[in-house]
């Protein structure tokens, strides 16, 4: 209640350097911030900006070659830099705790969860095992862990990812730490699980009065859990302000750029545009002498290139590292010419293509009741000997839809919902189990080995992970040229010219022809991946989360590029993503999948407002929206996704459906009968027992979406 003037954590002018062969690299420079009791301080930034390094520096865990080069880290008034390892050890886990990105990795696979938790107490507090056990169970209950006492006896792999993260959080809170550092704690989790964990974090923060340092790349998450935000760029903190200020009035050009390049839930390609930040983040050993952001800044002047700005405190408490922040008015911002041209064409296309994107176009891809089952073998002796009952993972069940030519169908769903299997089946990496699938009147239920070249050529794919999309052993030119040679679309002698043309249309220069993948950045690799998919001039491109592994500023550029491609070549696309905002932005139609089943499908616009499927509703309410002023309904799903081996009877969603109670007998029908497809007009179909009127009567999850 009394706020002592001193913060829990005060970092001043921190610089962290790593010794590498032939010198050292300053991963972090001039970082200053402080966190008070009960505060949740976000540190946002793109990958490689040094945000995790700051966290590691605080707990002094920089590895053998890292060290704090300058600055101080004051924790409860005492400088952590220069403390003995033993003193630091006593602080860690007691006064300072940390939660990491991947809970599976963070827990010891060969120790029972209980033992891992208890030792925090027994080591720091020296209390008895049984007492520690009681306290751990208490703490597990406080993080809403079902069946807490049993969980103590389990191993990490026996509980789900969301539960693992709860255990990690409980473990961190056991000693009631003054500072809790969370490094991307929800990044590895699905959106509905993420939402529940974020709720939990917010609740625990109030309850424990703990100062939280929250590291993330996701602006939406920041808006949901943080009170203060520091934006990092290339190892420096460029802006610091309250969360409301950061989103309402970003001061630094980088922050402004960052906010411009993420789609907000509800935006679409017809009405809005994404503006990527040009250029790329300079590596630590090649940072410019002046302002680190100057090379990418639209407002850069000579002074910016000569002189590195300091973190200035503005009158309203905002800290900014920019020489000219007072002179910059984001409202007056105009995109640089090239970007503007690009964005305009995109918008123009979107308008022009509207007729095509409605469902009037001739369907290019038609699925009817497509199924894909995988056989599974159990672990029992009977199964091993082949005597057990044959069982299947029902990865895709009864997929029925058609995709008009030139339009984009977005498929959303959480991991394991079968969206990847669906497109693998369409492209032929997997045979389908039953049902019909036609592509331009060709049957595509068979796998690739049964298809002829002409068909193979028409379906191409863009992959998720930029690091694995290209073969590291071949040059860019060779890899883009290969499909041309393989399908004979281009005479051998002209392949090089064609590849260069394609590279240029990807906005990569001809000089990329001879580069090896390791010389490219993630965004560039993704462009090459798109170029390779386009090389055979396919009619249908399947995009498997093409931007989810990219930083937001790059993500925008890739999305624009894909839109551009679609406009020029009238390509049809299937677009898989777990990010509902991106899907909404990019797609004409959207299908929502849950546990192998399409739950709802229809025009993108219709999906995001009532009437919608209860699962869609839960998904929408879970999406972190990068705007702290937006009010979102809080609908959380209970339990975890059931196994696809024995999916729930009736409606597959019934085990977790929060709306079931609206039906008579608490929705007994949902457990018995497969729901009907209800037509909501304009090709919008919902797979639910609830009457359309009830579904339509739901309040919109996000207010701003209703007005749309």
């Amino acid at each position, binding site marked *: *209640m*009394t706020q*002592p*003037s*001193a913060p*829990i954590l005060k970092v001043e002018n921190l610089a962290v350097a790593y010794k590498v062969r032939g010198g050292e690299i300053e991963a972090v420079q001039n970082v200053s911030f402080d966190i008070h*009791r*009960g505060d949740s301080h976000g540190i946002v930034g793109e990958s490689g900006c040094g945000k995790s390094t700051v966290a590691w520096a605080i707990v002094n865990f920089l590895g053998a070659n890292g060290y704090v080069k300058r600055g101080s880290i004051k924790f*409860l*008034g*005492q400088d952590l830099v220069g403390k003995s390892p033993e*003193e630091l050890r*006593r602080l860690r886990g*007691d*006064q300072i705790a940390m939660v990491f990105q991947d809970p599976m990795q963070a827990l010891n696979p060969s120790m029972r969860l209980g033992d891992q938790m208890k030792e925090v107490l027994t080591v*720091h*507090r*020296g*209390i008895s095992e049984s007492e520690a056990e009681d306290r751990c169970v208490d703490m597990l209950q406080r993080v809403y862990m079902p069946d807490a006492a049993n969980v103590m006896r389990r191993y990490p792999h026996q509980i789900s990812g969301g539960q693992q993260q709860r255990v990690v959080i409980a473990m961190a809170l056991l*000693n*009631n*730490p*003054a*500072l809790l550092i969370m490094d991307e704690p929800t990044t590895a989790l699905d959106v509905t699980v993420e939402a529940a964990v974020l709720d939990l974090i917010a609740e625990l923060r109030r309850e*424990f*009065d*703990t*100062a939280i340092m929250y590291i993330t790349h996701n602006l939406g998450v920041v808006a949901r859990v943080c009170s203060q935000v520091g934006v990092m760029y290339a190892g420096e903190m460029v802006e610091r302000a309250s969360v409301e200020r950061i989103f309402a009035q970003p001061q630094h050009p980088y922050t402004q750029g960052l906010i411009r390049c993420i789609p907000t839930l509800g935006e679409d390609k017809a009405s809005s545009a994404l503006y990527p930040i040009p250029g790329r983040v300079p590596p630590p050993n090649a940072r410019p002498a002046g302002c680190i952001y100057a090379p990418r800044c639209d407002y850069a002047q000579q002074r910016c290139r000569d002189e590195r700005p300091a973190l200035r405190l503005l009158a309203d408490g905002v800290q900014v590292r920019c020489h000219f922040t007072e002179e910059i008015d984001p409202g007056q911002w105009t995109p640089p010419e090239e970007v503007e041209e690009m964005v305009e064409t995109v918008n123009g296309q979107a308008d022009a293509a509207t007729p095509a994107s409605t469902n009037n176009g001739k369907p290019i891809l038609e699925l009817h009741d497509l199924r894909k089952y995988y056989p599974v073998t159990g672990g029992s002796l009977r199964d091993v000997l082949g005597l057990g009952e044959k069982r299947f993972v029902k990865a895709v069940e009864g997929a029925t839809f058609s995709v008009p030519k030139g339009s984009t169908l977005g498929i959303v769903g959480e991991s394991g919902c079968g969206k990847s299997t669906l497109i693998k089946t369409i492209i032929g990496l997997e045979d389908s189990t039953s049902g019909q699938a036609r592509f331009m009147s060709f049957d595509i239920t068979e796998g690739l080995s049964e298809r002829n070249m002409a068909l193979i050529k028409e379906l191409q794919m863009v992959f998720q992970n930029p690091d694995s999309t290209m073969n590291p052993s071949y040059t860019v030119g060779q890899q883009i040229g290969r499909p041309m040679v393989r399908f004979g679309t281009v005479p051998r002698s002209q392949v090089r010219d064609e590849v260069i043309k394609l590279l240029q249309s990807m906005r990569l220069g001809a000089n990329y022809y001879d580069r090896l993948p390791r010389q490219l950045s993630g965004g560039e690799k993704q462009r090459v991946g798109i170029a390779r998919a386009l090389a055979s001039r396919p009619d249908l491109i399947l995009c498997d989360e093409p931007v989810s592994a990219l930083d937001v500023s790059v993500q925008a550029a890739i999305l624009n590029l894909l839109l551009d491609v679609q406009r020029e070549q009238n390509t049809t696309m299937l677009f898989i993503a777990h990010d509902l905002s991106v899907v909404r932005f990019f797609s004409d139609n959207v299908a929502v999948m849950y546990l192998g089943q399409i739950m709802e499908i229809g025009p993108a616009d219709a999906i995001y407002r009532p009437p919608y499927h209860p699962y869609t509703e839960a998904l929408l309410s879970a999406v972190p929206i990068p705007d702290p002023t937006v009010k979102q309904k809080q609908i959380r799903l209970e339990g975890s996704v059931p196994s696809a081996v024995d999916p729930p009877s009736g409606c597959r969603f019934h085990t977790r459906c929060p709306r079931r109670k609206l039906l008579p007998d608490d929705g007994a029908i949902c457990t018995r009968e497969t729901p009907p497809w209800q037509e909501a007009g304009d090709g919008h179909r919902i797979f639910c027992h609830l009457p359309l009127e009830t579904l339509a009567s739901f309040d919109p999850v996000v207010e701003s979406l209703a007005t749309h």
Partner: protein
Amino acid sequence: MLVKDCMTRHPVVVSPDLSAAEAERIMVENHIRHLPVVEDGKRLIGLITRERLRLKAEDIGSYDVWEITRNLARLKVRSVMIPLKQVWTVTPNRSIERTASLMTEHKIGCLPVVEEGNVVVGIVTQVDLLESFQIMLGLPAKGVRVTVRMSDQPGEFAKLMRVMAEQKWGVMGIGSFPDRRHEGFYFAVLKLVGADEAAVATVLNDIPGQEVVDIRTVV
């Protein structure tokens, strides 16, 4: 209200091996007067105050200035702290009234809040308590502050509350203290929202046996 609702969580603590000078620096920098001294696992072993760190004349004796400096530099928190035996502590579940009485009784400015095993979970100071009482009286909110004198008969207060409910006024804070001049009477202090001063005065004065002794609008 309990101690855990008003205490400062995660207080600044020091280890007994810290030098006294360093402890003093921490107190000055953080503008605090008390530092719990803890060992492994935040177990309380003592408390230091600014007074304890001040050199006493008899200690200095005939030392010259260099010796004083040297002694000071060597002085550890462990040797100047108030040992645990002499430190009053409270648990987080103690009520604030009892805590306040403990403080007034023993004339202490600060109490470490400990859980079982003497693990420090917070610290509560006089200022914290004052602040809680302010809150209990509804200080932060705008509204009408009214003091009513009434008899201490059962049902007397209920009359007042009924009127409040009828008028749909919100009660933000409530407190009472005995009227020292009239035996059997006491004053009730109420903080009301959604009411204006004049209306409150007339309505409350209409209650038989009760009298508004003070009314003011607080912003």
